[in-house]
């Protein structure tokens, strides 16, 4: 099994690229043999330093390899400490200090590909409303943990940078499934995922539309996202999609 990875992203309208608060792993297009780790996180816009929190979470899954649910929970407190100590500054204004106390929040989706005697498969962990869609033979095989477009919109339960890891145990879900050559995995933050599932439910093939963007065609992807936003077909939010093609 080989896996090729490419990723596209765009900041919400009205925000600069520096204010983009999703995060992904790996940081650039890449290919993997036998084993690969991938992640997308979506930092909550209203919290402060949520981009850093999202980056710590994808780094924990992708860089440090905390792809098992229990392993990640065990290390969450270290990540929280790293997040807090990076931003404490006695001279900061009252509102920055109070936002720090409230913490940052992020949704996380992490995927690990494995191939052993049983064949290729994935293990995934998720908290919140980032979404994994598996497409096989031109059909949507699985959408997880959000299964249908109407499930977006309510307040998802996100990983907090200040609440103890033990309290967040229940938020982190696990999923696994065998894979086949030719499968494509789409790891998406919520705005694009909601559009994607809506299209699929209407009998259309969003995986073909998104899958048509070649690696590096960032401008083409952003122009397409802009059109969807302007047409009211996609919520104005940060957008990220990571594609993992099993070859």
């Amino acid at each position, binding site marked *: 099994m080989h896996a090729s990875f490419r990723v596209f992203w765009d900041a*919400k*309208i*009205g*925000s600069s690229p520096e204010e983009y608060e999703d995060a992904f792993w790996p940081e650039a297009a890449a290919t993997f043999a036998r084993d690969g780790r991938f992640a997308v996180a*979506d*930092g*909550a*816009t*209203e*919290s*402060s*330093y949520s981009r850093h929190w999202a980056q710590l979470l994808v780094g924990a899954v992708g860089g440090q390899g905390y792809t098992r649910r229990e392993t990640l929970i065990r290390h969450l407190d270290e990540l929280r400490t790293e997040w807090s100590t990076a*931003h404490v500054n006695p001279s900061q*204004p*009252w*509102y*920055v*200090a*109070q*936002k720090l106390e*409230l913490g940052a*929040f*992020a*949704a996380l989706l992490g995927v690990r590909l494995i191939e052993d005697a049983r064949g290729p498969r994935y293990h995934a962990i998720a908290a*919140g*409303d980032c979404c994994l869609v598996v497409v096989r033979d031109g059909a949507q095989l699985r959408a997880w943990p959000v299964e249908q477009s109407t499930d977006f919109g309510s*307040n*998802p*339960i*996100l990983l*907090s940078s200040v609440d103890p890891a033990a309290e967040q145990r229940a938020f982190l879900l696990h999923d696994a499934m065998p894979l086949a050559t030719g499968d494509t995995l789409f790891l998406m*933050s*919520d705005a694009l995922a909601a559009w994607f599932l809506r299209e699929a439910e209407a009998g259309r093939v969003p995986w073909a539309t998104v899958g048509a963007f070649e690696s590096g065609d960032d401008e083409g992807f952003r122009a397409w996202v802009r059109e969807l936003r302007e047409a009211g077909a996609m919520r*104005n*939010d940060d957008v990220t999609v990571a594609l993992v093609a099993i070859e």
Partner: protein
Amino acid sequence: MYQAQISRANPSAFVFLVDQSASMREPWGAESGKAKADAVATILNRLLQNLVLRCAKEEGIRDYYHVAVIGYGASVGSALGGSLVGEDLIPISRLGNNPIRVDDVTKKVDDGAGGILEQQIKLPIWVDPKAENGTPMTAAFGYARSLLEPWVQSHPDSLPPIVVNISDGAPTDGDPTAAADAVKQLTTSDGSVLLLNINTSSAAGAPVEFPSNPEVLPDDYARLLFAISSPLPPYMRTAAAEEELRVDEASRGFTFQGDAVATIRFLDIGTRPVNMAAVDAPAT
């Protein structure tokens, strides 16, 4: 209508009108022992704090809102103190960065293991209590219109501003209905300015929240404030329903009460962001 996304390019506005007449020295309903003026100042300061926090990011405060706090009593004008004296409708970053002072308060919190921890918290103060002279409510609505008329012209596609009037009742400068209507007639492409009224009562009875029928109200002043209050737009009805309040299409942005907690809830519903570029935490 009432669906425009709030962003730095397309901010919204809040104008708080605060009754500072002599009668606000009276105790406030269930909050006996505390004068209405003190209770209202406390509630307003916490509300302003929450609005600032909603817009605060690591790099500073994003100007999603413009805010005015107008007092009416001995005179009509900005109720903000410190370096903001005399300033009316200002970007929320200017408000957040310029409180009169930041009080250090010790708060007792549960330590999660059966004990109590003392926590130091900082409470920014922008408005100090004041209570003197009459209740020039008509003039206050005129003042609000003078602030918002140019504002809606320069923000034609913004979420319509919200005016919140906090008073214990009787205007002393005539019937404010026409002046209130003139405020509500201001529009953006997304709808008309909304007027919400909080009638602080010295009676400790059960609060009346978002009524649809003036018959339930105890006096003519309450019925007057009900009559000039805007019907709730759908997004506020949804927010009220989420708080398990009974609302219908005829419900008005009005509350009559002597209860601080219910007042805070009313203000939370009335100022909750409908569609903010910085959406309500912890949504992503």
